[in-house]
């Protein structure tokens, strides 16, 4: 009885922890994989198509997609909207750096959520087979290209800054110095990942 009550009592704690965890594993890992697969476009259309082919040949691809990508993203995204909704926003009154980042984390989360839905709709669920030409076709449209740039920057920021927050939520970085250093490291990660993402988009558009 007491145990059942305790479990009931801790339910929100568990949902919250699952939310921060899912953001890194597997969603964050998938983001990295996705960015680096796309980066093969920097080596030309053939290199990208080859990388796509390698993924397409994975066994049980639909199961992997559904269990390790779709479900975690859906959970992280929907629960994240709830987190963003119950958060207060007072950066106008208390404009400390971390408080601004707190707001940015939620804003980029919402942008990324919308971005992912649109991105999936125009690629994965567009009915077209994934290939360099298909992406090239899409990013030739200026509005789409701009939207992709915004989405990539928002997603990489949300992931990198989320890593900083994750390290605190799980009690990894405890001291002030550790947290400050992690903040710098995660921002370097953000710049690097955003650069990889934007460079890939340019490569898709230029079709070199």
């Amino acid at each position: 009885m007491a145990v059942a009550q305790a479990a009931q009592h801790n339910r929100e704690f568990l949902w919250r922890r699952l939310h921060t965890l899912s953001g890194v594993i597997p969603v964050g890992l998938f983001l990295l994989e996705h960015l680096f697969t796309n980066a093969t476009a920097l080596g030309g259309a053939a290199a990208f198509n080859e990388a796509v082919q390698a993924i397409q040949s994975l066994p049980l691809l639909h199961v992997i997609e559904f269990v390790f990508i779709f479900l975690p993203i859906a959970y992280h995204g929907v629960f994240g909207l709830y987190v963003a909704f119950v958060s207060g926003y007072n950066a106008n009154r208390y404009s400390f750096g971390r408080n601004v980042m707190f707001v940015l984390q939620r804003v980029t989360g919402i942008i990324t959520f919308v971005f992912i839905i649109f991105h999936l709709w125009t690629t994965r669920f567009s009915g077209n087979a994934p290939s360099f030409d298909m992406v090239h076709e899409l990013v030739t449209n200026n509005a789409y290209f701009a939207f992709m740039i915004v989405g990539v920057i928002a997603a990489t920021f949300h992931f990198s800054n989320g890593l900083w927050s994750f390290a605190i939520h799980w009690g990894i970085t405890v001291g002030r110095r550790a947290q400050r250093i992690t903040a710098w490291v995660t921002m370097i990660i953000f710049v690097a990942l955003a650069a990889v993402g934007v460079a890939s988009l340019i490569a898709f558009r230029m079709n070199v």
Partner: protein
Amino acid sequence: MSTTAEAVQQTQADSGRKVHLIIERQDHPESEPYWEEFEVPYRPGMNVIACLMEIQRNPVNKKGEPVAPVTWEMNCLEEVCGACTMVINNKPRQACSALVDKLQQPIRIRPMRTFPVVRDLVVDRSRMFEALKRIKAWIPIDGTYDLGPGPRMSSEEQQIAYELSRCFTCGACVEACPNVNDKTSFIGPFAISQARLFNMHPTGKMNKEERLQALMGEGGIFECGNAQNCVEVCPKGIPLTTSIAVMNREVTYRAIGAWLRK
């Protein structure tokens, strides 16, 4: 001021100087707040409390209309009780240690709206007391027989505990925290730090599990979104964000451990 003549000169220069205050007032807990401006005579070294006392002495607003004097709370006047905490120039702090000479004028004063406003600058901070009760911020030593001296504490732990024990429940961290709002029941940063303090104590450790359980329960530690305003505004410089991270680690271990022990 080395000589009396200089002191006299200074006093003459100060006479006629005014302190301009803009105060957010509220007559009843349910009534609408409104801003009112005041001008009080300047005195060297005066603090915000002295300004409020001046208004109490002569309750006339800047326009010269007689008004009800501004209500506020105070007690120790040396920044150890926390009673006079209010938002001064956009920072939650104690009015007693807010020196007029160091503040930009006009000085804007608001009550801490995270808490229910009773009247003017007086707020009801009972939610903080409720939070302390929830995390059992005490050490149970009462019994029917003498329990004897407890275990000793290392000097390093004493140092940390001393820092944490300087919390005087003033409410500055609760006011600045974005996640203490109408949509959550977050207990607030100070309560997490107090749970750490009492869990560190050799006798307090005996109720460690109960405190961790409270932190994992409703309004617990997971409501923290790492905006870290708390540590910026704490008048005592308590490492609140470190306390939160320490307790995050403890509840993580406890959650995983509890699951593996079942």
